[in-house]
């Protein structure tokens, strides 16, 4: 699946690799944000307000 996604990217190899790096960074940031928000259901710090 990863190979298929890579092949679907436009441009020469250099551009594809750069795109992969950008996509991975964006995905990791989105995942970290999602994990942090989802973590509030487990424990949000116990603040009363």
């Amino acid at each position, binding site marked *: *699946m990863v190979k298929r996604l890579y092949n679907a990217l436009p441009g020469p190899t250099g551009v594809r690799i750069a795109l992969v790096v950008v996509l991975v960074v964006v995905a990791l940031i989105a*995942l*970290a944000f999602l*994990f*942090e928000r*989802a*973590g*509030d*259901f*487990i*424990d*949000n*710090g*116990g*603040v*009363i*307000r």
Partner: protein
Amino acid sequence: MRLIRGFGWTMIWAGGLIFAFLAYQLWGTGLITAKAQREAAQDLDQIFEESVAELEAAGLPVAPEPEAPAFAEPVLYPEPVPSSSSPFARIQIPAANVDHIVFEGVERDDLKKGPGHMPWTPLPGQPGNAVISGHRTTYEAPFYDLDLLEAGDPITVQTATGSHRYTVREILIVEPSDVWVTEDREGAWLTLTTCHPKASARQRLVVVAELVDGPNHAFVYGPSDDVEAG
């Protein structure tokens, strides 16, 4: 066949995501807190010294050493207001395995570093109701064992003013919106709040403790009152 394979891959990715999520929450977040606590512990003595210097410069009374003779008239020793998100105190609760540096503020980023003091409540050791919140399951779970506390257990909070000793009076389970537990009180109190039950933010575990010793005890309760007996 294609459908089954697709389902299989979806399950593998979902499993991987859930595993990554739990690993981040239960282990990764603890690394963030451990680093912040380590750095704050190194800076705390200097922060105390700077706070005392700030009080002296403002002409305010600085708490005497414990062995120094007491003033005839009880004096209120104020605490300089810490800047937002900065470490300013150390809380120790032996019965609940708590020994953490406390930060000013209860926003998401403050509580990542350790227990946080609600800025709109008095500082620990001061008259009124000082409120400190902390994580129970993630970010090193400083208040994980808070449910082990019983009435009479000691809590010590060290600030620039000195060491403030509290005794647990009450343990409550309340809703996250029950703000009355954070309201001001007569005397000097410390209220600790955390999530309840463990691994859920559905309710709040609240520990209410009363000041029984420290620089401001005589000022709040009078020199002869034995609060501990009450």
